[in-house]
Each structure stands twice: as structure tokens, then as C-alpha cells.
């Protein structure tokens, strides 16, 4: 009961999805299923919220090292959630001024907008920009001509880096038009069009097969690790 029914549910749901692809009247089911997934994922966020509360409340009550930061997280979480769910400071839709809940939840000037604009965007964008530094350190540390494969990797990166900035135009701008393929931008184009295309394609074909077999294992109940695979 605890294990068999879920496996049956998974198998039936999955097979219906496969069949729906070939049967035109059922084609909408696939979109519906995707929507249902999104609803479930949104509802599951309550579980995530509970996990956040449990983890940080425990850290605070245990007075673990750094529990003050847990407090920051919890307060930030609580404020954002209440401001957002209650649409604090959000004006109603201009056409329906009598219905206070009609406004867009993230309106310019509203508290949630402020939080998004001045807390979330700067921190996440800066985290994202840390990549520029890590890319540099990886180039220094990992791009070493240890063997033939590594030489190919770093050689390609070298050419494309040059070919895609002003340096490429500057260095090989003198090459006559008829030998354009030998300029840095030209070589970049060949790399992108031939080897990059071929490599990407082979990876994609392999991935498609990998996904197909993983999916099949789930549908047949062979892979049930998501339910715990052994008794």
C-alpha cells in the first residue's frame, strides 16, 4: 500500500503523458499536467517554509554559533512574506479602485518592490558577478596544458576569447578578405559552426537517450529511489 500505489500512480500518470503525445484530442493534457505540477510545486513551498522555520528556530533556541544570523533570516522571511501576501502598500487596479486586492503584487514603490529592488537584486546580482573572479582564477589554475585534451580546451578558449573582443579585430584585421577564415573571428566562427555544433549535438543525443532510459526505469518501477528503493 505504502509503496505499490505510488508506483502505480507514477506508471499510469507517465504512460498517459506518453500516449497523449500521439493522440491529438489528448494533447492538452500535457499542458494541464505541467500546470498541475506548477501548482503542486507552489503549494510545496509551504513545506519549504516549514523547513526554514524549523531549522532556524532550532538554531536560535540551541544558541548555536551564529544564531544571530538565523534570527536575521527569520525576521527577513517573516516581513517579506507578510508584506507580500497582504499586498501592503499596493494600490488597487486603476479601473477598479474599490477593490483593494486587485493591484499587481509588485507595484513600483510598494514595500515588496522595494525589497526586491534593493535587497534581492543587489545581493543576487553581485553573487552572479562573482563569477567574473572565479572565471579568472579557474583560467589561471585549471587551464594547464597537462595533456592533449587540455591543450585543445585551453587553445580553443584562447582563440575564442581573442576572436570575440576588439583584440581579435585588431590583431588580424590586416588579413585579406579572401582568407577571412584564417582571422581570429573567422576561426572562432569555424569552431562554433563545426566542432561546437558537433559536440553539442552528440551531447544532446546522449542526454536524450539517458533521459529516455531513466524515465522508462521510473515508469516501469525499476528505479524507485525517490520513494526509497530498498525495503
Amino acid at each position, binding site marked *: 500500500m505504502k509503496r505499490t500505489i505510488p508506483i502505480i500512480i507514477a506508471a499510469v500518470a507517465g504512460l498517459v503523458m506518453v500516449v497523449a503525445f500521439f493522440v491529438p484530442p489528448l494533447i492538452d493534457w500535457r499542458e494541464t499536467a505541467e500546470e498541475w*505540477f506548477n501548482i*503542486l510545486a507552489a503549494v510545496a513551498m509551504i513545506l519549504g517554509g516549514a523547513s526554514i522555520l524549523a531549522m532556524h528556530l532550532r538554531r536560535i533556541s540551541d544558541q548555536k554559533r551564529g544564531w544571530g544570523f538565523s534570527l536575521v533570516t527569520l525576521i527577513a522571511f517573516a516581513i517579506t512574506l507578510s508584506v507580500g501576501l497582504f499586498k501592503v502598500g499596493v494600490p488597487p487596479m486603476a479601473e477598479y479602485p474599490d477593490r483593494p486586492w486587485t493591484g499587481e503584487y509588485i507595484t513600483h514603490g510598494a514595500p515588496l518592490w522595494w525589497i526586491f529592488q534593493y535587497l534581492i537584486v543587489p545581493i543576487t546580482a553581485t553573487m*552572479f558577478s562573482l563569477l567574473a573572479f572565479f572565471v579568472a582564477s579557474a583560467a589561471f589554475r585549471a587551464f594547464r596544458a597537462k595533456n592533449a585534451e587540455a591543450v585543445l580546451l585551453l587553445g580553443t578558449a584562447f582563440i575564442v576569447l581573442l576572436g570575440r573582443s576588439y583584440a581579435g579585430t585588431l590583431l588580424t584585421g590586416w588579413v585579406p578578405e579572401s582568407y577571412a577564415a584564417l582571422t581570429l573571428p573567422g576561426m572562432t566562427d569555424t569552431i562554433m559552426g563545426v566542432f561546437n555544433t558537433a559536440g553539442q549535438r552528440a551531447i544532446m543525443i546522449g542526454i536524450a537517450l539517458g533521459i529516455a532510459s531513466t524515465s522508462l526505469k521510473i515508469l516501469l518501477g525499476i528505479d524507485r529511489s525517490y520513494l526509497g528503493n530498498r525495503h
Partner: protein
Amino acid sequence: MVKRWKSVTAAGGRGRLTGGRGEPAMGSWGTPGLVAWVQGFPVVGQLVLLVVLGVMAQPLWGAPASPRGLRARDVRNDAGRALTLDWQLSPDDDVRLDPPRVAGYRLYRAEVTPEERPRFERIRDEQDLPPQVDEVVDEGLTPHQPYLYRLVAVDAEGRESAAAELDQPVRPEVWYFDRNKRWFLAITLLISAGILFFIRQARRGVELKIRKIAGLEAVDEAVGRATEMGRSMLFVPGIQDMNNIQTVAGITVLARIGRLTAEYDARIEVPTSRSLVMTTARETLESSYLAAGRPDAYHEDMSYYITDEQFGYVAYLTGYMVREKPAACFFLGAFFAESLILAETGNSIGAIQIAGTAEPAQLPFFVAACDYTLIGEEFFAASAYLSGEPEQLGTLKGQDVGKLLGGLLIAVGCLLFTYAHGADSPAAQRAVNYLRFQVLGTEDIPEEILEPGE
């Protein structure tokens, strides 16, 4: 207190409060000027002129000629909700005429029912069907319901021509099997059959030989080293939800790692960026510990939720890594821009790092910064390989069947294509097109490709 509201929700141009209905959509002739000009003649002259003008202008003033040959066809391979209509243009629909005589077409539709006479409703007008348009797809119909159509040409003054009508009602048919996909169905079945065949072989006890995959032995080694060093391990299942197979594959590997962890009595943490993934990871870990005979050592906090926000999650992970200094980091799942931040931070704390993903754009970074990387398909293979179950290994063999099939199709296709090009053979060209667009495609074929005349 009673609130009573009435909102004006109308749209429209500016200065609406001045009101009034809009001007006609298109400009008309300057009639008053013409009248004044005619009035300048003596009465008889006026009459003569009017008659002459009237005869001359007859073709100009009459309604345009009607379009002809209206036909309706069922749209193939659909759920019975659409019909394609086509017709021959009205003879007056000529781009060389200035001013144009036809401003467009209007299409009327009626549902045919036994009870009452069909009532035509306009469903498209000249804005939808401008001049020179001779085909339209009418969608949103009721399956099996008979419809009648009527098409007229219309000029700038809105005068309608005589109507072209269907002789008999037409019904949108429901297609219960999409014929464009029959070859694709065959391919799907073939690959599935290959996988199933080898699973059966494995169940029967036939030993399947699979090549070594570098990086998989490293998983065991990493868990062992973490135990020795007495430090924890970090498992990151990617930033996508359970609707991504990569996440599922990552969780499958987690089952193996979880079991090893339980056996060695090591510590593992699985922070997730999706609530559903957290739930699944907990299920997985719980049964791994159960399978290792150590259910008591399992507790829910091994997997916890951080945030759905990509870089919020990354901020937590990098902070965690430099503070807790895990001995081993596993990045197995769907990764995006965060891949390099994670791998470089893990590198700076000297952890063994094993990564696996099927995101081609992120593979370079994992390859550059991790100890072992499972590239694309290898990642999916890993979950089967690590499970140690023979029937799961069968799926790997099945995948190879798929690759053979793919290779074969490419080889045959390329040879045919080369022959077609080299020998200029239309027959070979047709065969190549059939292979490319019928066998390997699932949509209607573009018409210009079907006719290799270009």
C-alpha cells in the same frame, strides 16, 4: 453603508469624453466637391454628364466581383477543432489597381443543425483577411459539428460582393492518432524495446559487460575520505525541481551515497533549492539509512530547504562550504551559472569534487574545476551503474541500442544525401527528404521542401 460602483471600462482613442461614434475607418471621395462641379453645368448638360459619368463609372461604383471556388478542408492530425478554408481571389483583387477595388474579405460561418435554418455570423473581416489572402485556418470549432461558410469580397466603402459558398456542410474530424508521428512512435518503441530487452536479459542472469566510467569509483573513495577526515559531505541536487530528470538522476545517486554514508557512519547534508526536492531527498535518505540497517542514525535535518532563488541558494552554499569545509562535494543535477562559483569555492577549501550534469553550457566549468565530471549521458549512466542492480545496468545497454540506431540513421542519411547531391538524383533527394522530415520529423512538412524543384 452600501457601495455602488459603475466603472467605465471602455477603451478607445483619446479625448473620449467628447464622445460620438468614430469616423469611418477609411477615407471616401470628396463628394461635395464633385457635386459642386456638376452643379456648375446647365441643366441639360448636367443630365448628359450624369448619364455619361454613370455609364463610365459603373464598374467603379458597383460592388467588387466575388471570390470563387471556396473550399474547406479538415485540418489533419488535430483534435477536430479546426478547418482550413481556401478560395480563388476576386478578379477585382488586383494589386495593380489604384485605388484598389477590394479592401479585403469577410468570412461568415453558420452551424448546421437539423432544427433551424443556418444563421451566418461574421467571423473574419477585411482587417483579418486583407487583399491577396486566399487561405485561412478557422480554429476553436466543435468536433464533428457541420459548418457552412460564406465568403464575400468587400471594397473600401464596405460594399460586399456576391457570396461564394460551400456546396455542402463540412465537419472538423477528430484524429485519434497523429499520423505525422508514426515514425517517431516507431523510434520511441524501438529504443524502449532495446532497453526492455536488456533489462530482461539482466533479470535472466545474463552478465552484461559495461565499460568503466571514470569518476564513479571516486564516489566511494570520496565518502571514505570524508569519514577518515571526520568531516561532513555536501550533496547539491542542482537548482531545478523534480520535473527535471536530471534532478531525479541526482537523487538516484544520492540513494547510493546515502547508503555508504550510513555504513561508514559519516555525515551528509543536502540543502535544496526546491521544496519538492527536499521532500524527495528526505524520503531517499530515510530508506538508504534503513537499507544500511541504521534507521536510528537518520534524521530529517539532513536535507533542508534554503530558497528557490538561484543566487540566494548559492550564497548559502558558498558560505556553508567555507565555514564547514566539507571533505567531499557532490554536484549532481541540473546546474546553471552557479556551477563555477560552487566548483571554485569547493576547490579553494580542498574538497574532493564530483560533478555530473546534462547542461552542456555548464560542463566546461565542472570539467575545469572538479576532480571528476560525469559528462551528459554518463551522468544518467552513473545512477544505473551505482545502483549495482543488474537490471539497471540493462538500461545502459539499451541506451547503446539507441546510439547505434542514431549512428545508422546519420550514416544512411549522409550517404543518400551525398549521392543525391553528387549524382543530382531527384529520387535520392526525395528519399533523403522522406528520411529527414517524415521519419525524423513530427510536424507537417514545409511545402517548399516537399517539392525539390527549387
